[in-house]
């Protein structure tokens, strides 16, 4: 029945948004990585549902890639990096948790208002997920800006990509397969490169707190 599928898709989308908020509320590094993995898993399932409803089988591949890459592989890489450089357990936010949560809520409202005219145009079973995906994007950006540790900035970027992917699915049922593959590859390489640089930063500066990166200024 269309409504169950619809509700399932909407439910998974809400779960993705919820994970974004959980990310903002988390205070330990391990929690953040796990929440990100959970979000990617929900996202992969969402893609699979959309594939099932619309019958476009190439979305299954994309869903599988999301789950394997973002829910399994990348969290492993991040955890490995964190263990190797013995990062301290706390996330170091520059805005405290309740305020961060409220700002994230405000961003969600902003996302809703921005996408409202877009939702009216065209028809798609998942178009109302667009508002949630933009909210996840903005919250990812917010996490990047307000968390000082280098690794949380990487995770913020990955959350932005998740939001983006959800937006792509919601408006246009994803993009041509080769483009999706290329994007995944890019994300993976980006994470690897950032991992290398996190190593170097820790080695050179003895801390991952990026507020120490203030030497270059005019």
């Amino acid at each position: 029945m269309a409504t169950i599928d619809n509700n399932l898709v909407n439910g998974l989308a809400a779960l993705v948004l919820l994970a974004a908020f959980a990310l903002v509320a988390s205070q330990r590094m391990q929690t953040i990585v796990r929440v990100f993995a959970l979000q990617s898993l929900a996202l992969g399932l969402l893609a699979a549902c959309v594939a099932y409803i619309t019958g476009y089988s190439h979305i299954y591949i994309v869903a599988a890639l999301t789950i394997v890459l973002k829910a399994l592989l990348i969290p492993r890489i991040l955890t490995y990096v964190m263990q190797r450089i013995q990062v301290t357990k706390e996330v170091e936010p520059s805005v405290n948790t309740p305020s961060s949560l409220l700002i994230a809520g405000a961003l969600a409202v902003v996302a809703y208002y921005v996408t409202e005219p877009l939702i009216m145009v065209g028809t798609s079973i998942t178009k109302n997920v667009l508002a949630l995906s933009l909210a996840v994007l903005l919250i990812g950006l917010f996490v990047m800006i307000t968390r000082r540790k280098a690794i949380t900035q990487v995770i913020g970027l990955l959350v932005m990509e998740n939001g983006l992917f959800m937006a792509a699915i919601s408006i246009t049922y994803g993009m041509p397969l080769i483009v999706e593959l290329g994007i995944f590859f890019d994300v993976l390489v980006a994470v690897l490169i950032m991992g290398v640089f996190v190593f170097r930063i820790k080695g050179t500066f003895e801390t991952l707190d990026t507020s120490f990166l203030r030497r270059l200024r005019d």
Partner: protein
Amino acid sequence: MVNLPLAIIQAVVLVSIAPLVTGIIRKLKALLQSRRGPPIWQPYYDLQKLFRKDSIVSHDASWLTRITPFVCMTAMLLAALLVPAFTTSSLGFLGDLIVLVYLFAMFRFFMALAALDAGSAFGGMGSSREMMVSSVIEPAILMAIFSTALLTGTTDLSGIANTLATSGWELVVPSLFLGFGAFFIALLAENARVPVDNPATHLELTMIHEGMLLEYSGKDLALMELSSMMKLVLFLAIAWSAFFPWGIATQLTLGSVALGLLVFALKLIALVVVIALIESSMAKMRLFKLPNLLTVSFILAFLAVMSFYVL
């Protein structure tokens, strides 16, 4: 539909099982901590003992301390009449969910005020902490229940329960889950459960609810304890009937009422087990970290309302 006798029976049932629910929670906690623990009927014995004793009131206390136990009890009894637990017939026409929330607010207000009345330090401390907690939680509760009110188009709690129970899959939207999550955290906060407050402690460093009860004794204490237990049961009942009321009796037949009772008992036990698990596995949060958890509840409720509009 409102069947007056059934509604009153429902209220009586709620009042009478309140101490039992508390007893079950304590027993479960004990078992989880490898103790034998008190029997599950212990709260009844405690109340019985307390009702026999005299109450002593401080010289400095005013009329407020004397009337507070009665006000609180009355508020809870009224609320019991309004909440649909195992059947949707309740005296909803007397008041909708806004009245309900404000009955709880009245309960909290009088309790906090009376705690200040005796002029003791513990009471004042408990009151201020309680007010801090409720300042964040009350909007969360309102928004969480409002999300279901928006969904079903009515603010009457039994109407909400009726609509949700009879609509099948269409109304199972993310709003419900988000609202339920928010309401559950609010339940823990309002009823002095870990991780917000430890109900078994009497250390001034760690108590909120208990601090406000220190000045009472005898019958007054019995009334306050009983109304607190009723508040817990009512919150549990609202949690199920406002969000996932399936199984509730919507018709007046004996069969559906019996089924409703059974389902209600099961739901209560389920939540009670969860509460006991949470209480045994988590430590109470430090006071200045409480706003983190409470804001999470607020945000969940906010998301519940928002996802109603967006999705």
